[in-house]
Each structure stands twice: as structure tokens, then as C-alpha cells.
């Protein structure tokens, strides 16, 4: 069995999952991932979609032709390949959607975001798949800001209510085109799935430890299309709350799991701390250096410490 620490949870797994922090040795685990029989339907489902069904304590995800996953009580993930499924594809789905839904099942706040460490705080970039989260975070890592998380991130709280982000060492996944533009060919790892030109990349600066970081500013990524011009804007608190809610990981489930209130509380906390911003920029590799310069200016103006490197 492999052992990992994912979003602060000790996880044992019979599947190797690239690039996660190793978990502590021992027998116990918060989450265990094992092969086993997974039904095609979920008895007693209270909600369902084209690929999923949920009951109060179980969640079935079926990816046709690839695999089925059963998530139980926020603690157990069972996986079974579909007829033509390939075992090598499991890790990509387990570390993404499947674990993300398990975190929802545990009642945790999960954002669709990548993040970097800026002066000891986690700066997050939220956006849907394809919005450039991983590319921007990796480019910032090249610039000297260690990567904290890729694709999704759990935001917890300490006893004083301060919002915390757990670095979990997840390797960024980048398309071949992004790897070429960022000049990262020598750090390219295995393909995320054998049939995709999307690869794990060894980040230029990985997180130093899995210790949680206070949550800094959170940016919602948006492409600069008319009438929106490139720049950084601060929305009012109502719009900020909507942005966070829309960028919850697998936002479809928030209402289903009755968790809307958690995201409004999060919005209030972040607006009072690092702030929520809209980062509008050209979706163009040539524009990346300018975006990073804008961000550094923004951090300097708001009193954020400069790069650690």
C-alpha cells in the first residue's frame, strides 16, 4: 500500500498517485483507497446526474468505459475498472474528481483553484478547467513562488477562525503546448493518461512542507474578452461570495449537499483577510510575464511580502 497526505488527510492507497506528499507511517488512515466491486447503480439515491448518484453517506461516480468509484462516509474509496478501462488511468481520476468529491462528503470547503506560496501565505487562482490555473501557478513557481496546490484546494480554519490551506504536493498537470511555452521539457513526467498529451510536471519549486499556510488573496481567473479589459479588480462582497461559490470544486454538489452557507462564511473570512479579486488577462503565453508583473505589483501595493526566492 502507498501512503499519502492529501489536503491534510492521511490516505492509504493500492494505486500509486504521482507527486503527492508521502503520508506518515503507521496503520491508521483517514481515507483508504482500494480495488473492489462497485455497483452500477446506487440503491436509495437521493440525487443523481449522468455520471453519478448520491445517498446521504455514499457517492457513486461512473465514468463510462473507464472506471466506477464508490465513496463511502468520506473515508473509503472503492474503484473498479469498466470493461475496457486501463489501470493506468485510475490515478488521474482518483486524485482529481474522486478525491474532490470525497472532501465534499467530509463537509470540507473545496475550491477549484491552484495556488502558490507568496511570503508565507497561500495565494490562490480559481477558475474552471482550461482557465489557465496550472499554467499560471507553474509560471509563478518558475519565478520563485513555491507551488502549494494544483487544481483544487481545501480551505480549513484554525481555532481562531483563520483560514488555512494545506499544501499537498500534487504535481501540476500541463498540456504539451504549455510545457513547450514554459520551457519545462526537462521536467516533464509521465502522461496523466496514456492517451492524452497532458503530463505531470515536476514543479520548479515544490512546497517545502505539508504544513498549512494562512490563506492570502484569492483571484478568479477570467479571459480578457470584450468588454472586459486586462487588469485586477476587487468585486463587492456579494459578487465575491458568488465568485467563490461558482468556483467551488464541482459546484453542482454544493446545493445537493446543503453546503452553500460554508461558502458564504468563507467569502466573509477571505474578504476580511487577503481579499477576493477578479484577474482578467489575455489567455496567451506571451502575456504571462506581464500578468506576473501585475500580480507582483498588486502584492507589493497591498503590503504582501516579496518573493521568497
Amino acid at each position, binding site marked *: 500500500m502507498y501512503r499519502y497526505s492529501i489536503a491534510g488527510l492521511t490516505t492509504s492507497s493500492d494505486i500509486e498517485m504521482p507527486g503527492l506528499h508521502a503520508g506518515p507511517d503507521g496503520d491508521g488512515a483517514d481515507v483508504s483507497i482500494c480495488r473492489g466491486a462497485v455497483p452500477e447503480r446506487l440503491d436509495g439515491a437521493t440525487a443523481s446526474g449522468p455520471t453519478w448518484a448520491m445517498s446521504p453517506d455514499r457517492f457513486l461516480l461512473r465514468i463510462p468505459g473507464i472506471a466506477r468509484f464508490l465513496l463511502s462516509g468520506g473515508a473509503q474509496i472503492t474503484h473498479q475498472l469498466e470493461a475496457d478501462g486501463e489501470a493506468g488511468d485510475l490515478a488521474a481520476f482518483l486524485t482529481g474528481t474522486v478525491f474532490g468529491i470525497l472532501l465534499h462528503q467530509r463537509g470540507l470547503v473545496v475550491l477549484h483553484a491552484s495556488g502558490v506560496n507568496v511570503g508565507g501565505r497561500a495565494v490562490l487562482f480559481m477558475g474552471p478547467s482550461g482557465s489557465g490555473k496550472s499554467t499560471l501557478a507553474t509560471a509563478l513557481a518558475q519565478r520563485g513562488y513555491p507551488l502549494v496546490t494544483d487544481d483544487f484546494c481545501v480551505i480549513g480554519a484554525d481555532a481562531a477562525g483563520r483560514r488555512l490551506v494545506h499544501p499537498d504536493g500534487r504535481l501540476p498537470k500541463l498540456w504539451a*503546448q504549455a510545457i513547450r511555452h514554459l520551457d519545462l521539457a526537462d521536467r516533464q513526467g509521465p502522461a496523466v493518461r496514456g492517451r492524452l498529451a497532458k503530463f505531470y510536471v515536476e514543479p520548479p519549486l515544490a512546497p517545502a512542507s505539508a504544513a498549512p499556510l494562512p490563506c492570502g488573496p484569492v483571484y478568479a481567473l477570467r479571459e480578457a474578452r470584450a468588454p472586459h479589459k486586462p487588469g485586477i479588480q476587487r468585486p463587492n462582497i456579494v459578487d465575491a461570495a458568488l465568485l467563490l461559490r461558482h468556483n467551488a470544486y464541482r459546484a453542482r454538489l454544493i446545493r445537493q449537499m446543503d453546503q452553500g452557507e460554508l461558502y458564504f462564511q468563507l467569502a466573509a473570512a477571505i474578504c476580511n483577510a487577503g481579499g477576493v479579486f477578479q484577474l482578467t488577462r489575455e489567455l496567451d503565453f506571451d502575456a504571462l510575464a506581464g500578468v506576473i508583473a501585475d500580480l507582483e505589483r498588486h502584492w507589493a501595493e497591498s503590503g504582501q511580502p516579496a518573493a521568497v526566492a
Partner: protein
Amino acid sequence: MSRIVWLASYPKSGNTWFRLLVANLSATEAPTDINDMGERGGIASARTPFEFHTLLDSGLLTHDEADALRPRVYELMGPEDDGQDLRLVKAHDAYLPTPQGEPLLGGRAAADAAIVIVRDPRDIAPSLANHRGTSIDAAVDFMADKTACFAAATRAQPLQLRQRLLDWSGHVATWLDQPDLPTHIVRYEDLQADPVATFTAAMAFAGRDPARADVERAIEFARFERLQAQERERGFSEWRARGPSALFFRRGESQAWRGELTGDQVRRIESAHGPMMLRLGYLTTAEADARRAI
């Protein structure tokens, strides 16, 4: 609860103009902002509703794997809609089956009908060249390519899901000849020549009965010069301009091809698409016969 009525067309055939007419039906004081089309209902190939309903990262799926799930998404799009009495959804996909053999767009389980917008392929070619930032010759080739797609890249994640277009004739034929949905053809040229009658008939097909005054105002508000003026002033959110002076609302004319295409380009389009051009009234029988003889 409303179900989808597809607004289906080959690219650059007037789909956006039609959606702006619909959006302007409810604009009373001033034209609808082209960047805020209240009724646009998205495009069938958008990733957001796909990921919302499937909970999957579409970027982790191959194009074919995503296609296999797309019918399920459209089955949910109509019923989950709230409040609109007409759900027009734009689609550039040809009407094709998934690898599993069911209609990609969900057939009758997802939609009630399709408004199919067509345009003279000789006018599409220069517009498509402008849209894709290619030469007109390359656009003519693209329109004759039976494997042509939008958003089919595999080394990066395109903004939208892959759309299989086929060649122009094949695209139109899949929509007109599919057995699942009733169709209503809107010819771009008719929409220009007699907008009130053409637009009113299309709305009637979709189950709406707009007042004549609303139709006339919508047509005035969505007049080409007004759309182009809005784009010059503020840009248009639905495309990435290829160059500083390129416009989405480029020319908006019929028969402009006579001044834009070379004789060779005209012959290539007519010989590749003669039968469908005849079917849609873009060539006479005599013209089509003459092209066949070449």
C-alpha cells in the same frame, strides 16, 4: 419547463445575427448589448454545462469520451432551465451519432426541434477566412474537408468541446435529413431580403408569436451597421479577433462573393457543393448541371 430548440448552422451562416434578433425582441428602449445577450443560452459545445452535470474534468477525457457523455448533458439542459419560455441553443456540430451510435445532441430526449440556418457557401468562404485568420483558399479547402472540426486540438485544451463539422454540404445534410427532430430552414439571404416574414415564421415554428411591432424594432436594433458599430466601440465577447482591425461583424451582405472570390474559388465551391446548393436554391438546375459537366 422548456426544452431545447437547436439553432443549428455551419459557422458564419448568420447564427449570431439570429440570436441577436431574438435577444432584441424584448429590448424596448435601446438595442441589446452584443456582449450581454440575455437569451443566448450558450453553445452546445461549451465545457461549463458539461462539467457541471458530469462532475468530470473534460480535459481529462478524449474527444470521443466526451462525445459519449454529451447526449446526457443535453437531456438535462432543458428541464433544469428556469423561467425561459424558449430555450434556443446554438450548435455548430453536424448532426452526427456518438461512437456508441446515439445522436450526439440527444435526439428527441433533449430537444423539440431545430431551426437550421443556411447561407450561400460562396459568401461563407470569405467570412470564414476572416473568422479563422486564414486565406480564402484555405477556407474553401476547409469547407470541402469531410474531416473538418472546430476545437479538435490534442496538445492543448481548446476552449470548447470538439465540434465535428464535416464539409459544408455534409453538415447541412446531417441536419436536414436527420429523422429525430422537425426542422425549419432559415436562409440568410431571405432573412436579409424579407426579415419580418422570415424571422416571424421561424419564431412561429419555435412556438412563439411575437407582435409585429416587436419584430420590426428587433430587426432595426440588430441592423448590421448597428452591430458593427457596437463591436467597433466595445469589441465582441464571442470571438478572439485575429488582428487589431478584424471584425466579427465583417460585412453582412449577400452576393458579396462576386467581388471577393476569384473565378477559380467560385468553381471549386460550386463543384464541391453543387447538389446541396441546388437543393437550397443557391444554384439553378441549369447552373448545377453545367458545373457537373466541368
